[in-house]
């Protein structure tokens, strides 16, 4: 069974970096930098975990998360929020995130966290 992981961050460099790291660790990676399109992408690809930024233009990570939780088809997909915002953890947990990783993170810790959700 492939370990499918969706990464959504408006910062292309971070997405690329994560893609390299996680690809190296044997995950199937889907990426998106435009938060407007991510809900549809999640519905279509049904990843085992979503790794998502918080502050993104037009629609923020916590808003996407709330909409996911309202959509029966994708409501059970775990979401880990990663953010550099001061109040990131609070916002993420309030919106119903399954986990939170503050930026900048250690790659080891990130992998450990991801593996907790996809095994």
């Amino acid at each position, binding site marked *: 069974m492939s370990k499918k992981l969706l990464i959504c961050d408006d910062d292309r460099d*971070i997405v690329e970096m994560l893609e*390299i790291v996680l690809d190296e660790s044997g995950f199937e990676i889907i990426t998106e930098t435009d938060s407007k399109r991510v809900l549809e992408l999640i519905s279509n690809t049904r990843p085992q975990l979503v790794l998502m930024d918080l502050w993104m233009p037009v629609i923020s990570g916590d808003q996407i998360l709330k909409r996911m939780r309202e959509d029966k088809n994708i409501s059970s997909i775990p979401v880990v929020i990663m953010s*550099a915002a*001061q*109040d990131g*953890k609070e916002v993420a947990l309030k919106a119903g995130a399954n986990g939170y990783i503050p930026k*900048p*993170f250690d*790659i*080891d810790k990130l992998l450990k966290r991801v593996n907790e959700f996809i095994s």
Partner: protein
Amino acid sequence: MSINHASDLPISGNDPANIKLLKSALDSSISGIIITDNTQFDNPIIYCNKAFEVLSGYLREEVIGRNCRFLQGNERNQQAREDIRKAVTEGESITVELRNYRKGGELFWNELYISPILGEAGQVTHFIGVQNDITRRKNAEENLQHEREQVELKIEKRTRELNENREYLDSIIQTIRQGLIVLDPEYKVISANDFFLKTFKVENRDTIGRSLYDLGNGQWDIKQLRVLLEQILPTNNPVLDFEVDHEFPHIGRKLMLLNAHRIEIEGSFKDRILIAIEDITQIRASENRKDDFLSVSSHELKTPLTTIKGYNQTILRLLPADINPKIPMMVNKSGKQIDRLQNIITSLLEMSRIQSGKLVLDADSIDMNILIKEMLEEAQEGNPEHILIFEGQTNHTIPADESQISQVLQNLITNAIKYSPDSRKIKLMLTEVSNYIKVSITDYGFGISQEDQKMIFDRFFRVSTIQKHFPGMGIGLYICAQIIKQHGGTLWVDSEPGKGATFSFTLPIKAKESGDE
């Protein structure tokens, strides 16, 4: 009015016995009585009774033949003399009060009643002078008068002082940079200071005497204000820092902090209400701007660092085993600098938050056994040349913000390693003391002098002797101390120069009572 002939008396005038009786009667009088003969030159005294001798101190023989004026000493210009002269000339009786002098020179007040005796042809032949020593009454009167004057002076002085005080207080009230209004118990405005009038762009004449709720077409009829005045203040007096947020028609939205005080002292001011109004609209706006700035800069600084850190660690993972060993060494070093930069960013933001009082606690339930073990393992990995020892344990989890406590531990462990380059051992102790857990981190390095110990928890303080060799900003311990303090614990140091240092902190096992729950 005048007394007529002796023949009017019921006793016949020519009988010597009767004359003796009359003389005895005169001598028995307590009033001094003299008779002068107006038909002789200079109106001399021809008779005085015993009481006159007592009163004046003169003997009869010293008095007879003299004019009465000798009693006045040097005070010949008394107004009363003028009155006497007039009465004498016109043959009328008169009562005057004179300042007279006894033989010994002592002043006495003489109430003198003068009555002319008319002869057969109606001419004035004699004067009878009846004299009473009214010195005591006069003195009492004078004392009374004096006291009255003194009281008046005092009242005048007190009034002046009160006026001065009122003006002084008034000038203070007019000078303060806060709006101040005074209301009567029916919420009518008794006074408003300049700052209030200026801030809310109103005139004194449209304000004084009107109900607060009616001011400026009812723009002060604010729900929060009614709650304050009608519900809170009657039972909670005074009320401090009451926030009112209101959109005024002309001056726009104002955020105000109110202190309200109802006067409870019995008297004419009772139940008056003082309201001090601080306009915090601008302050709050700039606080919010600062928060936004901090929040955005935090995000913007950390975002590029995320990519750099991620790539750096990935490079290290992907390096082939047979590569030039200098390369992993260099990547490792740049990794350490990235961590250092990350710490600086975190510290700066934490410090700004501490200063604005917004070090928010995320109260998790932390197992310190695990947290310390993890932190030590991490530190050990990065510093293989040091030996990190962990002793002790706790059976309790503690309510604390994990990321903040991690920060404190990391800071203290890093310091211990940093300042003991020649000694390899670092010891970490975890114990329970009363209702606290206690963590102590001991190194055997440079140590800290007594003098420096007092200041190491201050902002931007760096121990001068090590400053040059060990770069840093001097905010780490300040932040640690603040974080521990916010958790209800204490951070302190025990150290002797040359023998190392032990930094210890306590954290309460149970949450602070002041929490919301």
